[in-house]
Every structure is written in structure tokens, then in C-alpha cells.
């Protein structure tokens, strides 16, 4: 015997079922499956590996529990790598992160030759990163590099840009100060999306350039800035190829970052458990910072 409640809920459920946008769901399913398979499964696999002295063949090897994490947390080399990674992140924020924002703000004011400037800022992104790094390495060479050559003309140097442990981090980060690239275009597009009426109204109300930037332009860029911030954070923590080419982690471990440690422990030392543990720690660090960043941006 059906109750009146059951009779009432049945059509509602059917209605909900019909309301589901099935076409969209079906089209999105392959990518959801791919994400689960290629993003989430590897992550859980990495966590699983981190609990073992992992062997590739006839794995998983000896169960260690959290021993790999304990070993890492006691390792001076690991903490040096964590310190270096944070140092690179902060240097990137200080020297590089804001540059495309400023460039986009100025570019937004320039109407003549605007297309040319945009094109000019974008072209270098077509140069392979590694080629750019090799070029910078030549420029930095203390014996025959361009930079020391120019400085010697004014009686300075020679400096060991990539061989001085106190200087090398700056030498790696500072080339990013040229800005440009896709970041600039993203900010510029966001600025173009701001209604001209609002800006004109602000001008009529007597708002100067500084006020317009602070009160209208920057708030409209907030979302893109947050996305770029998270991207910068992820890139700093996850990539290491440029460090590998610039210095290989030296001199004296001054550029050894945790991404490089993941690579070396896995493919040089074949300690997959340790490598997995470092990856999980990186995930936690990036996750925590992103969480607080999102929280902070919501509050503001």
C-alpha cells in the first residue's frame, strides 16, 4: 500500500531526472573519466607508493607506513629544497608577478600602435623556454658573457651570476622581469572588458588615473590576478626543468627545489617511495596556500 507521501514524491523525482541536462552530462563524461583516470588515480597511487619502499616490478615492495615521511622531515636536504622553493616563489612575486599587470594597465591607455605592442609582447612566447635559458646562460657566463662584458666597461665585475650561491636565485628569476607573454594578454583582455561608461563617469566625477586604477581597474582584474597567483604558485612548486638546465640544483644546493628532488629521487636514485612522499607534501603545501588565498580573496 502506497502512502500519500510516496505518491507525491514520485513525480518530483521524475521531474528532477528529466531536468538533468543529459546531453551536457554525456559530453562531459569522457573528460570526467579521463580526469579520474589520469589525474586522480595517479595521485592516490602516488600516496600509496609513498607508504612503501616501492619496487616497480613485483611491487609494491616493503610496507613502511609513514617512514618515508619521517625520513624526509628529518632530512636537511629536503628542508633546504623547501626553503629554496619558497624563496623562488617570493622572488617571483616580488620581481616578476606584478610586471604584466603594470604593462597591461599602461597598454590599456595606449591606443596608437596598440596592436603592434601586443604583438611584440607575445612573440617571445613562441621561443622555446630551454632556448631562452641557454641564451641567458651565455649572457651570464663570467668569462665571455655579454653581461659581465658590459659591466666591465664601467669598471664592475666580473660576477659569477650562476656560480655565486647568494646571487644565483636572483639570476634565475630576474629574466622574468621583462614581463609580456600570455599573462599580459589575459590582464589586457580583462581590462578591455570593463565598461567604458564606468570609466568615463569616474572621469566626470573627477577621478584621476590613480583613483581609476585603484577603484575600477584593479578590482576588475582581481579574479585574473588570483588565477595567475595560483598558477605561479603551482609552477614554482611543480616545475623544475629550468632549474635543471640553469644549475642542476647547485651551486652548493642553493637552487635545489622540491620539484627537482621528486625527479632525482625517482629517476636518479630509484627511490619511488620517497619521491611519492615529496609529491604528496608538495600537494599539501600548494593546497593549503591556495585554500587560504581563496579564503582571503572572499573576505576582501
Amino acid at each position, binding site marked *: 500500500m502506497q502512502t500519500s507521501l510516496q505518491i507525491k514524491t514520485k513525480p518530483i523525482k521524475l521531474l528532477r531526472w528529466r531536468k538533468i541536462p543529459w546531453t551536457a552530462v554525456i559530453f562531459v563524461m569522457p573528460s570526467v573519466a579521463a580526469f579520474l583516470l589520469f589525474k586522480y588515480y595517479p595521485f592516490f597511487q602516488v600516496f600509496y607508493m609513498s607508504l612503501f619502499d616501492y619496487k616497480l616490478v613485483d611491487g609494491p615492495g616493503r610496507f613502511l607506513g609513514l617512514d618515508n615521511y619521517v625520513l624526509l622531515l628529518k632530512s636537511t636536504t629536503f628542508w633546504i629544497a623547501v626553503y629554496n622553493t619558497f624563496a623562488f616563489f617570493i622572488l617571483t612575486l616580488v620581481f616578476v608577478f606584478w610586471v604584466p599587470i603594470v604593462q597591461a594597465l599602461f597598454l590599456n591607455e595606449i591606443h596608437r600602435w596598440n596592436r603592434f605592442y601586443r604583438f611584440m609582447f607575445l612573440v617571445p612566447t613562441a621561443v622555446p623556454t630551454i632556448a631562452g635559458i641557454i641564451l641567458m646562460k651565455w649572457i651570464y657566463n663570467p668569462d665571455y658573457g655579454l653581461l659581465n662584458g658590459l659591466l666591465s666597461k664601467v669598471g664592475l665585475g666580473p660576477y659569477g651570476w650562476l656560480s655565486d650561491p647568494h646571487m644565483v636565485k636572483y639570476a634565475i628569476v630576474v629574466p622574468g622581469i621583462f614581463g609580456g607573454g600570455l599573462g599580459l594578454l589575459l590582464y589586457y583582455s580583462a581590462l578591455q572588458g570593463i565598461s567604458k561608461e564606468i570609466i568615463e563617469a569616474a572621469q566626470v566625477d573627477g577621478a584621476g588615473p590613480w583613483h581609476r586604477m585603484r577603484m575600477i581597474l584593479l578590482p576588475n582584474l582581481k579574479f585574473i590576478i588570483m588565477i595567475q597567483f595560483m598558477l605561479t604558485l603551482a609552477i614554482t612548486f611543480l616545475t623544475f626543468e629550468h632549474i635543471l638546465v640553469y644549475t642542476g640544483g647547485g651551486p652548493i644546493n642553493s637552487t635545489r627545489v622540491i620539484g627537482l628532488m621528486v625527479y632525482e629521487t625517482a*629517476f636518479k636514485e630509484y627511490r619511488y617511495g620517497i619521491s611519492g612522499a615529496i609529491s604528496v607534501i608538495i600537494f599539501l603545501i600548494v593546497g593549503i596556500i591556495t585554500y587560504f588565498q581563496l579564503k582571503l580573496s572572499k573576505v576582501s
Partner: protein
Amino acid sequence: MVKSQMRRDKWVSLIIILSMVLLAVGCSKPAAEPAITEKPPIEETPAATAAATEEPPKEPVEITIWDKPIGNENDPALKFVKEAFADFEAKYPHIKVNHEAIPTGETERQVFVTAMAGGSGPDAYSFAHFPVIGEWVKQGLVLDLTPYWNEYADKDQYTPAVMGEATIDGKIYGLPHHMYVMGLAYRKHLFTEAGLDPNKPPATWDEFVDYAKKLTKPEQNQVGYALLGMEWADWFFEYYVWQAGGDLTTKNADGTVTLNFTSEPVVKALQYWKDLKWTHKVVQKNVVQGYAENHNDFFNNRAAMILFPSDAAIAVVQNGIELTDIGFAPFPAGPAGKNPSQVGGSYWIINPQTSKAKQDAAWLYITYMLSKEMQEKSLLFTRDSGQIPNILSIRKDVDPSQFITKIPKDLVNGVAKAAENVQLEYFLKERLGTYITKAIQKVLLDEKADIRAELQAAQDLAQREVADPYNQDIKK
């Protein structure tokens, strides 16, 4: 009206998707034969192995080898390789070999390890480099070849030096694929310009310093010696420790490791490097620059002397340098009066995950390619096509000097002399390199650095983070 239109659209979309899925399934290749067909045999009887080596099974077998050369069709080397492949299949018609190029990736080591982990590795592989084969054996990536080796007719044709890294706990895991020896290379014309005899390379540490001073000309951006202080610094530094009478580590009888970073030979070697940099000032300013940059300096007359592998003669030619301008000699001897060279190279290994029939076929393939006949054929071809061969042979009964016309005799002799006295690299190098390199770099970059203190710090850290956990693992 609109609702019925939407409903129809949904059905059309669904039908399209289903058709695409069916089409994709229909067009896809049938599932490949799984690489893991059966578990590797744990014990093999010599009789069974003898059957594999002397009377090959006639059942058809298909193996995959990552040895397809990459190059254009006009490359003369490609012609020889194709001939060699065809010769093998003619001799063993029941074995079909799929020659595949090494898949692209960050490094070939990384690609191989990843493929093995995924069960799609080749049946045989020729780039198990000397320093990594031990780790690969521990990871279960390499088949124990001892039963095959015991029955192998040519086993006495390989020297203990070339088999050293492939011999682990008395078992044989690889056959040499290619080999080089490290030595001191120098630019003869720079020697002549500096008033030095180009046929008399420095033979001791003191002589080396004298030569390097004469060859250092800051006004020409020229240094006497390109020092390798980058992250691979431990590689070349170990030679100096040998020359001072020691080694960076000791492998104990029970398999554990003892670190010798603070031993007197290591201190002397690091003091010598420090003097080259800070007292004699005969090395490049950027002592931590890369290996390739050091080579560039040597090729471009910015460095007169460098430590160089014997199989890189082709790189010299490719950089437009006449081989007559290159001298090659054993390392200068250190305070212990020793100067062993280091041999490097790679081994052929067999996949332990593949079937016994494939392992047998892979062994036949490897031993065929390493046979005296094929090695000499390769050298003959290299000579006739005007190429630069590897001066060093992996086999005792093959003499490359008989096939060399383009390489000056003194260069060949220099390599042969360096190869007379060789030593294997220090134990656990892949894990300990970072620690000793840190101490080396500190001393090279800071004139005031205390050598003993830096070495002690490196040893303490390496002991705690590598040696202790490693030794505990061994004892478990």
C-alpha cells in the same frame, strides 16, 4: 513544440555519440599481446640453458629490441645496421625481431624504467649504463644472466674491468654493449704556443700544475684546465681521490657501505682542486658550469686541457677540429703514484618479465651482435665509410687499431695506455653524489672554506640521510 524539438536534439546527440563510440571501437587495433606472458623462471638448470645457447628452440618466437637507429636513409651507419639485422634473421629464421626506436622522453633511462613499470619494456635493451645497472637489478628490471653466462663460449673474451659493474654478488646481469675510458685530452697547438712539448703530456700532479700555468692566458680568455665543478663534480673528483690512494666509499663484504669522505686521500684531492682554482688560478671562472660548456671551451681553445671520454672523438671532428690537434693520455699520477682511469659505457640486459622463450631468443640476439665476427664487421664498415670508430673494444680478441685509418696513431696509443689500468666508479654514487658535490662546490666557490670541516659536514649528512638507512635495509 520547443520541448519536443529539444527532446529530438537529445536523441540525435545520443545517437551520434553512440555511433562515434562504436566507430572508435571498431577502428581500434586489436589488443596487443601482453608483454608479461609468464613469470620469469627462478632457477634454471645448466642443461636447459645449454639447449638455449647451443641448440636454439625452433618454435617461432618474436622479440622486441629497442635498437632501431634514428637517422636519415643516407646515413652509411644505417646500411650496416640493416645488414646486421638481416644477417641475424637469416641465421635464426625462427626468431623475428621487432626493432623499435627508443621512445622519446626526458632521458632514455627514464623512458626505459617507465616502460618496464608499465609492463611494456623491450625484451632486450642495450643502454643499461654502468653506474645504473646495480640499481636496476635491485628494482627487478634485469634478468640474472649467470646460467647463460656459464655456458657462453666467449665469456673469456671480456675483461673483468668491463664486466665489473655487471657482476653483482657473483652473478652476471649484463653483457657490454659499448665502452669508453676517461683520460686527459689536450689541444696540441696550444701546448706548442705555450712552449710545451705536445708529445709529452703532464704525468704528475706537479707537472700538471706547471703545464696549466703556462697554458693559462687571461688576456686570450684561455685557461689551462676546464674543471668540472657542477652537479656531476663527484664524477671527475673521484679520479683525484684514486690518484691520492683512496676512494670515496667502500663496499663492505656484507653489502653495506662505508663513507670515506674525511679520509686523507679525499682531503688531499680536494686541496689539490682548491689550489688549482684559488692558488694557481688555472681553471675557468665559472667552475660550476655544465659538462657541455666545458667541452665547448675545449673545442673553442678557451681551455687547453680537459678530462675526456675516449668514445667522443667524433664530437671533436664534428666541431671542426683535426684529430691531429688532440692529445690523449692517462691521468697525471697523484701523491700515491697511481693514476687509474675510469671505464664507462653500457650493458645489454634482458627483461626478466618476458617469457623464457623470448629470453633465450634475446640472449642469442645479443651474443650474435657481440660476436667477434660482427664487431669486426662493424669496424670494417666504419673504416670503409670514412667514419670515426670507438677506439676501445669491449672484446679482447677484437683490435680496433687494425681498422683505424683516420685516427692518429698516438691518439690510439694514448687511449690504449689509459685503458691498461682502470677502476670502477665509487659505490652508491647515484645516491651520494649530491652530498660530496656540495662540499666540493663549497671549497671551489669559497676561498676561505675549511676543507676538513666541509667534508666532515658532507659525511655526517650523507651518513644520516643515505648510508644509515641503506645499511639498515641491507641488514633486514
